[in-house]
C-alpha cells in the first residue's frame, strides 16, 4: 500500500521548469529519502505535497484519494528554512501551531506536555523562544511537526544545526514514529543518514526524477560486478574478461580492484587467484548511496 502516489507532476515558475513530469510512490509506514542537489526541485515537490502550492499538471494521491485540504491535518512538515515567533512562549507557540493543524485545545495541551517531557524540556514551557539556543528551538520545531500525530511527516534537512547527541535523539524519534505507523519523507544532502535511515529513495536532478525505489534494489541495480581482492604474492596475471581497475601493494599484500565481464563468474576469479597466490579476501564492491548520488547527478565529473 502506498501512502503517497505522485503522478506526472509538473510545475513551472515563469521560465523555470521546477518539476518535469515526476511520478513515484511513497510506501506506507516507511522512511523515504527524497534526494537531489540544490535547486533540483525537492522543496517544490514538498510544497506541492503540503498543498502550499499547486502543481501545474498531475496529481498527488494521499491514501489513494486526491489530495485535498482535509489532508493538512494528517501531514507534519518541518521546512528547511524554519523559525518560530520569537516573542511567544514555547507552550503557547506549540498550542497555536497544533490548533492550526486542527487539534482540539485540550488534546493539544496533553500531547504538548507529553512531548516536552519526552525530549526532557518541560521546564522550557514558559520561556520565550528568543531566550532559547538554536538547538533548543529545533527541538521545539520538531515537536510542532509531530504533535498532531500526522500519518505523513516531512522533514527537510532535519539534522542541520543539531549537535550529534540531539541528532541521535531525533533519529531515534524518527524510527519510533515509523514503528507507530507513520511515514516519513526525509529530504537531505547528508548521504550517510540516508544510508542509515531510509527504506526507499527517490533522486531528483534538474527537475526530473532520476532514480526511485527500494534502497536495496537501487544499490543492486548500481552493482557493476566490481570486486576488491586481497592476496599475498605477485601482481595478478591478466585474465580474459577481467579488467584490473587499480592495484595497491602493501608489502606482501596486494589489493586489487577488478571488474568482471558478463561471462566470468566469481568462482573463475577465485580459481585464477588461488592458482598463483594465497587469497586473503574477496568482496563485492557495493555502491554507497553517496556514490550513486554523485555518479548520477554529475556523470561527466564536471558541470
Amino acid at each position: 500500500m502506498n501512502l503517497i502516489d505522485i503522478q506526472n507532476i509538473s510545475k513551472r515558475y515563469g521560465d523555470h521548469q521546477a518539476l518535469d513530469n515526476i511520478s513515484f510512490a511513497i510506501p506506507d509506514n516507511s522512511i523515504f529519502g527524497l534526494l537531489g542537489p540544490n535547486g533540483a526541485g525537492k522543496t517544490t515537490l514538498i510544497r506541492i505535497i503540503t498543498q502550499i502550492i499547486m502543481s501545474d499538471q498531475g496529481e498527488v494521491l494521499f491514501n489513494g484519494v486526491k489530495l485535498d485540504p482535509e489532508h493538512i491535518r494528517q501531514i507534519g512538515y518541518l521546512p528547511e528554512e524554519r523559525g518560530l515567533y520569537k516573542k511567544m512562549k514555547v507552550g503557547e507557540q506549540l498550542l497555536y501551531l497544533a490548533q492550526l493543524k486542527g487539534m482540539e485545545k485540550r488534546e493539544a495541551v496533553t500531547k504538548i506536555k507529553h512531548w516536552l517531557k519526552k525530549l526532557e524540556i518541560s521546564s522550557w514551557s514558559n520561556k520565550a523562544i528568543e531566550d532559547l539556543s538554536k538547538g533548543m528551538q529545533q527541538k521545539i520545531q520538531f515537536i510542532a511537526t509531530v504533535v498532531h500525530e500526522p500519518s505523513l511527516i516531512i522533514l527537510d534537512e532535519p539534522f542541520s544545526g543539531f549537535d550529534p547527541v540531539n541528532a541521535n535523539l531525533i533519529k531515534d524519534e524518527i524510527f519510533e514514529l515509523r514503528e507507530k505507523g507513520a511515514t516519513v519523507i526525509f529530504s537531505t544532502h547528508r548521504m550517510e543518514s540516508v544510508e542509515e535511515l531510509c527504506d526507499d529513495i527517490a533522486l531528483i536532478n534538474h527537475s526530473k526524477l532520476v532514480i526511485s525505489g527500494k534502497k536495496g534494489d537501487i544499490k543492486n541495480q548500481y552493482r557493476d560486478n566490481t570486486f576488491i581482492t586481497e592476496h599475498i604474492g605477485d601482481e595478478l596475471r591478466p585474465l580474459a574478461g577481467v579488467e584490473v581497475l587499480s592495484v595497491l601493494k602493501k608489502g606482501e599484500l596486494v589489493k586489487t580492484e577488478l571488474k568482471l565481464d558478463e561471462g566470468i563468474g566469481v568462482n573463475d576469479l577465485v580459481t585464477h587467484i588461488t592458482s598463483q597466490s594465497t587469497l586473503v579476501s574477496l568482496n563485492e564492491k557495493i555502491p554507497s548511496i553517496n556514490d550513486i548520488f554523485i555518479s548520477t547527478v554529475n556523470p561527466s565529473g564536471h558541470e
Partner: protein
Amino acid sequence: MNKILLIIKREYISRVKKKSFLIMTVLGPILFSGLFIVPIWLATRGGDEKVIQVIDESGLFAEEFVSADNMTYVYVAEDLETAKSALAVNNVFGLLYIPEMTIEAPEGVKFYSTQNPGFGLKADLEKKIRERIENIKLINSGLNQEFLDGLKSHVAIQTVNLSDSGSESESSTGAATAVGYIGAFLIYFFIFLYGAQIMRGVIEEKTNRIIEVIIASVKPFHLMMGKIIGVGGVGLTQFLLWVALSSAIVTGITAVVSSDMTPEQIEAMQQVDQLSGMPSPQQSEAQAAIENSMGALGQINIPLVLSCFVFYFLAGYLFYGALFAAIGSAVDSDADSQQFMFPVTIPLIFSVVVLSAVINDPHGSLAFWLSLVPFTSPVIMMMRIPFDVPVWQIALSMVSMIGGFIFTTWLASRIYRVGIFMHGTKVNYKTLAKWFMMKS
C-alpha cells in the same frame, strides 16, 4: 473559518500583551487630553502681563492707550534715550515712541523692545494709532464724536441650512469643521499606525521563517486576513481605551477648573469647546455656556457622523491594510519597504493636505470626487460629513469604498501568496506584476 479565528486571536493577544501597547494606552490619552486642555488652560490663564511705556511727543494720543486685560500702558515724560536705556532695568516689555508729527504725515513711530513683539502686538498698536488719526481727520471734517461712535457696526452672519422638507436649522460651520477635522485625522493616524503594524508583522513572519510552517496549515489568504483583522482589533481596542480615558481625564480636569472660573473665562472656554467640538459637562454657571455650544453641535447629525466614522475607519483601514500586507510580503526588511511605502502613503498624505481646500468648499467638485475615490475618501468624506452631504453621495462613496477594499484585498492576496516565500530577491514593480499574474 475556525483557523482564521485562531490567527486573529493570536495577532490580537500577542499585541495587546506587549508593553508598548500598555504604554501607548496610557500615554495616548495624556497627549490627547493635552490637545484639549492646553488651549483651555491658555484661554483661561490669559497670557503674560506686559507693560508698555509710551512717549507721545505729538500729543495726539494722550487718551488712546488705555490699559486693558494684561496690557498696561504707561505714559512717560522722559526723553527717548533715557527711556530706551532704562528699558531692560525697569522690567518693561517695550517702548512706543511717537515723535512730533502731523496727522497728514504720521511717520517715525517706533517700537523698542528687547524681544520681538510679534504680529499681534504690532497690529494692535498700528490699529490704535490709525483709528485715532482717522477719528481726528473725521472730526476735523466736521463730524461730531457722537456720530462717529454710532458709525461702528458689528455684523455676524447666521448660517441656516434648508433641508429638503423645508425645515430650517441653524448650522455651525465652526463645530462642523472641528468634528470633520477630528474624524479625518483620527482615520489618517489609525491607517498609518496600524497599517505599518500589519506590514511589520508580515515581515516578521517572513524573516522568522515561520511562514512555511503556518502556510502548511492555513491558506495564505486566511493568514493575511487574520493578521489584518487582528491588528485592526488591537487598533480599535486602543482607540476605545483612549476615548474612555481621555474623556475621563478631560471631565475630571474641567470639573476642577470650572469650579473657580470667572464668567469671561467660561466664555473663553466655551469658544475652545466649540472649536474642539467636544463639550464637557460643567457645573453651575458653566452649565448655560456649555448648553450653547451643545446647541451648535446639536445641529450636526451625531449618529450619522459616528456611524460614518466607524465605517470609514474600518473600510479605510481594510483598504490600506491589504496594501501594507502586500508590501510586507514583498520585502525582506523594514528598510526595503520604503520604495513601495511611498506610492501607498502619498494618496493618504495628499488627502490630508487638501483638507483645507475641502473645508473651503465642502460640496465642490474637488471634495465630491475625492470623497468617491477609495484612496482618499476615508479622510475626505469624514471631513465633509458634518456639512450635510447628500445621502446618495455617502451611499455611492461607501459602495466604492467596499469595492475598493475588496479589490485591494484581492490584489494584495495574489502578491502576498508568492511574496512570502521569496527571500533575497530584488523586488521591483515588474516582479510584483509577475507575482500577481502567477497561477496559484
